[in-house]
């Protein structure tokens, strides 16, 4: 608890300093986030994360590390509202709604934010069957720019796929046949084309070989250069080194 308190205090002093310097307020400010899962079948409660305090400035890249089961993904999922937060607040500085508490936002607001502002990249690609890689990214583009801007969507899609080093002869192939790294890059491409203000990365480098990891790292650096705010979960510390502006370590659902 004291560690949490100190962390919150540190964040607040940092924020106060930035406010003094005339900088922006945090893009995302999590206070006292707690989430536990009740499993009715065995009548048990599993603690996901408890009393998390975290704040992210615009354009920052924040990494979370920790052993599996320590509640890292729970935080990300609470932000994306795949998990229903139990208590605490997740204040997000939205372009459309202004300051909004994601823990209390309506379902309709969340759907809007997911389409326009917050991107989520998981380790797994979940797409409609029998869509080729190009169409998947194109679909995301259309959701963002509208179907009246077909030409623009097509241009953006091609640029994005090239940007993510997907070979052109793979564009009209179903991603089912892709390698893990290709799937992941496609996944990131589909999330990135929406130009989210906040990108949540749930272990984007897990189960990737070193060459692919380096590619993902390059992409993240490029995104960072474009000013995207990112919150990522990573297992390997080497990968995070030099990339993250802030690092948090989690143990047993707590920030340490």
């Amino acid at each position: 608890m004291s560690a949490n308190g100190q962390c919150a205090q540190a964040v607040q002093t940092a924020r106060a300093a930035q406010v003094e310097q005339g900088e922006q307020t945090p893009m995302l400010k999590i206070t006292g986030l707690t989430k536990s899962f009740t499993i009715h079948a065995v009548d048990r409660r599993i603690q996901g994360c408890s009393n998390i305090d975290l704040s992210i400035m615009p354009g920052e890249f924040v990494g979370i590390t920790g052993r599996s089961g320590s509640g890292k993904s729970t935080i990300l999922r609470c932000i994306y509202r795949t998990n229903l937060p139990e208590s605490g607040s997740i204040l997000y500085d939205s372009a459309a709604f202004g300051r909004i508490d994601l823990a209390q936002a309506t379902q309709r607001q969340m759907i809007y934010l997911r389409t326009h502002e917050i991107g989520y990249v998981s380790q797994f690609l979940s797409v409609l069957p029998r869509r080729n890689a190009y169409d998947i990214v194109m679909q995301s583009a259309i959701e963002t720019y509208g179907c009246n801007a077909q030409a623009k969507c097509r241009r953006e899609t091609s640029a994005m796929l090239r940007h993510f080093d997907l070979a052109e002869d793979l564009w009209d192939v179903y991603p089912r046949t892709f390698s893990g790294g290709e799937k992941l890059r496609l996944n990131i491409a589909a999330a990135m084309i929406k130009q989210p203000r906040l990108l949540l990365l749930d272990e984007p480098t897990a189960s990737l070989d070193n060459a692919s990891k380096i590619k993902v790292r390059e992409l993240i650096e490029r995104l960072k250069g474009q000013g995207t705010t990112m919150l990522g979960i990573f297992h390997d510390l080497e990968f995070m080194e030099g990339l993250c502006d802030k690092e948090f370590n989690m143990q047993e659902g707590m920030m340490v």
Partner: protein
Amino acid sequence: MESAKEAFAECEVGVTGEAVAVPKQESHRVSHVRPVQPRPSIRSRRIEEDPCVKVQGLSRSFGNGCAYCLDPRAVLERNRCPRCGTVHAVRDVGFELYPGEIVGIVGESGSGKSTLMQCLYFDQTASSGSIFVKPYDGGHRNILELSSQEKRRIRNTVFGMVYQNPYLGLRMDYSSLSNIAEQMIASGDRSVSHMRSRGEELLGQVNIPTVRATDPPRTFSGGMQQRVQIAKALSNNPPVLLLDEVTTGLDLSVQANVLDLILQIRRDFNVSMLVVSHDLGVIRMLADRTFVMLDGRVIEEGLTDQILEDPQHAYTQQLVYSLL
């Protein structure tokens, strides 16, 4: 209705027989059929919109009910009253459906999903509750209290229904094109040539070969019948589609086609949909939000991935954990 049936019979000759000369004064009547509007881009849309369909306290019971079971706190045997035997198929369901939104409804058989859909489509008479439909009259009146004539107009112009059982939604002995034409006549179309071209276009979209367009659905496979139903439901561009187990019994390849088609319709026409399905995979792919029904009640609602990843209610957990 009689006149519609007559026109339907004429049309039967028209679409199956040789080309039919369309009288001049007939063709201008087409104008009151709602034209296909390109969807406004999402960015330009307002974020907080009015719901397209608003349902409040909708109930449907089979039986008269007694003093015991009409009390909302009554404990029933699942959905059946232990004292008078009344079955409460849908109990006090309320929700809002927004433009361009797909809402999924899951739940075990007998939980009231189809009854709810049929109440919306007036196939069943709701016992109580109210439904407001914005595309019809701006959502001012409870459509359950309207005259049967107005109900029929809502059925023909606002809602498109695809039944689980194609025998409920199609006339099996008439050609597929006339099935589609029937729906278009009901919504005011009188031009045979327009109905024919629209019918062929729709059947093409659902991958029914043109050479079979004039065959009766009785001669089709189950998957093809389902696709003819979808084409029929789409024929007059309804703003709200009710899809009851559309992909049940279809093979995976046709299922993927149908899902693709559904998403394409949503994207191109901003149609709102209510999708009932047992297949959680289908719900995951299609629905933005999901309701879980049990014994006639909505026990849980939420964003689809939240329902699937973080189910709260014991029944929902049991359902989700049964997923292969």
